[in-house]
């Protein structure tokens, strides 16, 4: 298969970037999208040119490192997977593919297609955990947890922090990411203890970092590689409302 690639090139965070066009030939349909970029890069190095930089690591859809916006969709045209799991059989032979980095004020471009997602770490640091320290915890089975709740919590916890939700949201909102973490803990007795403090701190940090506001377009859910549901956003709104209306300032 042959493809024409239009790729965003940007030397560093301060440089002004631009699109450049590349051609790749004889790509197998079983080749993954990132392997196709590897082939392009090998080719560029052979021609004594600079390769294209993009983030990637585990290449099995779990680390959340890969972050390409392909033909208007984060992680490309296939549903429910990351770009590293997507294969070229999803594209028509001879087609043009436009590859852009995640675009958001909170995710500045580092180089080419690499962006800085440390804003997500900062949101987690604001409260995305249970504040237990190592040791001195009760037996794992001391608190039974309804299977349905544990499963819902796991659904939310499956988030890989890739940022596709922010990338696809027309408002560059991080609500799906934040609500997934809030939900995971709000559903478990271990997380409930500090739920009020957590939701307020995480929302405040999210706002501070320049993410947009949610307008319920649900694009995030449609593009999430782990199919995280927007019901988590509703749950977070509920938690937030409860925390604000609660008598005591948390």
């Amino acid at each position, binding site marked *: 298969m042959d493809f024409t690639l239009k790729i965003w090139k940007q030397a560093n965070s301060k440089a002004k970037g631009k699109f450049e066009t590349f051609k790749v030939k004889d790509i197998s349909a*079983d080749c993954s999208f990132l392997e196709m970029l590897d082939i392009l890069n090998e080719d560029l190095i052979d021609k004594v040119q600079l390769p294209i930089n993009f983030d990637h690591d*585990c290449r099995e859809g779990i680390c959340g490192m890969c972050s390409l916006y392909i033909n208007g969709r984060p992680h490309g045209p296939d549903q429910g997977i990351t770009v590293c*799991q997507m294969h070229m059989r999803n594209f028509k032979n001879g087609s043009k593919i436009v590859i852009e980095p995640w675009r958001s004020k909170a995710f500045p471009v580092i180089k080419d297609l690499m962006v800085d997602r440390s804003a997500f770490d900062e949101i987690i640091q604001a409260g995305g955990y249970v504040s237990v320290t*190592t040791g001195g*915890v009760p037996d794992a089975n001391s608190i039974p947890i309804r299977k349905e709740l544990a499963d819902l919590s796991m659904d939310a*916890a499956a988030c890989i922090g890739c940022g596709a939700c922010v990338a696809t949201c027309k408002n560059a909102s991080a609500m799906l990411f934040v609500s997934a973490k809030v939900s995971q803990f709000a559903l478990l007795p271990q997380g409930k203890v500090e739920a009020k403090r957590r939701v307020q701190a995480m929302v405040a940090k999210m706002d501070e970092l320049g993410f947009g506001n949610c307008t319920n377009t649900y694009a995030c859910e449609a593009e999430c590689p782990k199919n995280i549901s927007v019901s988590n956003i509703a749950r977070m709104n509920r938690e937030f409302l409860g925390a604000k209306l609660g008598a005591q300032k948390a």
Partner: protein
Amino acid sequence: MTRLDSKIPEGPLAQKWSNYKSKQNLVNPANKRKIDIIVVGTGLAGGAAAASLGELGFNVKNFCIQDSPRRAHSIAAQGGINATKNYPNDGDTVYRLFYDTIKGGDYRAREANVYRLAEVSSNIIDQCVAQGVPFAREYSGLLDNRSFGGALVSRTFYARGQTGQQLLLGAYGALSKEIKKGTVKMYTRSEMLDLVIIDGKARGIITRNVVTGELERHFAHAVVIATGGYGNVFFLSTLAMNSNGTAAWTAYKKGAFFANPSMVQIHPTCIPVHGDYQSKLTLMSESLRNDGRIWVPKNKEDAEKIRKGELKPNDIAEENRDYYLERRYPAFGNLVPRDVASRAAKERCDAGYGVGSGLAVYLDFKESIGRLGKDVIEARYGNLFQMYEKIVDDNPYETPMMIYPAIHYNMGGIWVDYELQTTIPNLFAAGEANFSDHGANRLGASALMQGLSDGYFVLPYTLQNCLSEEIRVPRMSNDLPEFVEAENNVRERLEGLLSIKGTKTVDHFHKRLGKIMWEHVGMGRNEEGLKKAIEQIKELRQEFHKDVRIPGDMTGVNTELEKAVRVSDFLELGELMARDALNRNESCGGHFREEYRTEEGEAMRNDDEYKYVAAWEFSGDDKEPVMHKEPLVFENIEVKQRDYK
């Protein structure tokens, strides 16, 4: 004369750890904040250690190469984590987990370390549940368990097929809490390139900030290396693309001994290789072997027809299928340990019974779908089946999966004593980066256990024993000559690589190295092949240093330069692995020497001569390394031939 002191505490096995803890030295709270600790790596071992040490009040600096500590490759572990909770009441005890681990490791691990691992395993589950890790539960609301290879009890806790992710996110949460508090300072997108030694003790590291390209000097009273395994020496493996052996190799070259480097685990259930452009192999969790049955056609003609596409797997009648694991190992069946399952697959494929490209066997769920229903199978493995379908474009509910073994884990690693301290004072190694607990083969669901055990429950104690000596040592300046020299060495090395300006890419060399390793230092090894490999690697190394092409310069992002450093280290490490494999004239666990096998083709150990850990000491570039032996003493377990029949 050996310099190896494993510092195993006195007393009966079951009391060693508590004896150690009662007698060890501690650091008082006021002194803790005056002491700096560097932790390299943020996976289960590194992340858990950094968080726990931060909680204790030490001043921790934590480094990772990814953009966030949450992306360490521990995240990719699928199946589960072992613990001796005995919740199912099926007879599990600390001793049994200890026994299974030693036996699974083919009697090449240190008793005391393994017993401690089994002892703290239950604490890990308590800890993770308290952190909000959503483990799988039963309708009773209590935790669910599944069984795993190499064990007769159900002791594996899991969170769907994403156990590693959930445990890592638990540790990441704990780490984030400490970063917020200021006890841990996080350095992301930073790669350790050298270790700084002052007066014989590890006192810091040199890192390269991969965004700015700048070299940085970091001081600490002690350094922990938790950078995982070096399986990418094979190019194709289940490891992440950025996983590498450079931190460990740097430590080795600065004097830390490297133990059992050839002990590599080959995971039996991976998606088979399909092309030269392939960059990585995808693991299908071992848990699939709980319900999947592994087979190849009984007749060579059928296998040939399948390879040509003339027959489909479902065309092969039941009586013409060879469920070779169930046939050879009736007691454990499809749940034999990984090394046994991998070798059996290779044996069948080498004999001409392979399917797909010839290097694949079937993993079939038809029987369990019939017995349990599709819903149950989907609930258990839905995400794995989906992943398989996305990659292979084939529906595993209808046609059997194709699998083949792939490089997965390194049992070998930096030599450490009972305290996880290396042969360099104040340098520690944890998790997959050390060699300590798995002997010659690791059992499924034990890597997560070991990483978290080292990070949460071992290092926070043993490091203090070392650091109690350091309370009078003030923070040192980064401008000491040792730091300057180390930084200059790194700069020279990077400039040297950049100045080669050859004609071939880094990946070109990496792929060639991978082929040599897979062929000669892979699942089956022999003297001739290993000797050949050593020569070929030497030649390839020379060629690399003459002909590699790295575009760009030192400033800013330069991924080719990062890769070049790692591959140049792999080109040395690969040779050491071959030397270690050549030295060990026996077959044990993941190390299978074709010359040493029983008549039935099973691995044959040589306990009289090789019941030791081979710890290699660096003695200079292009000089042969020196091997030191740590004899293994088994006082609490009867050493016998592993038998899964």
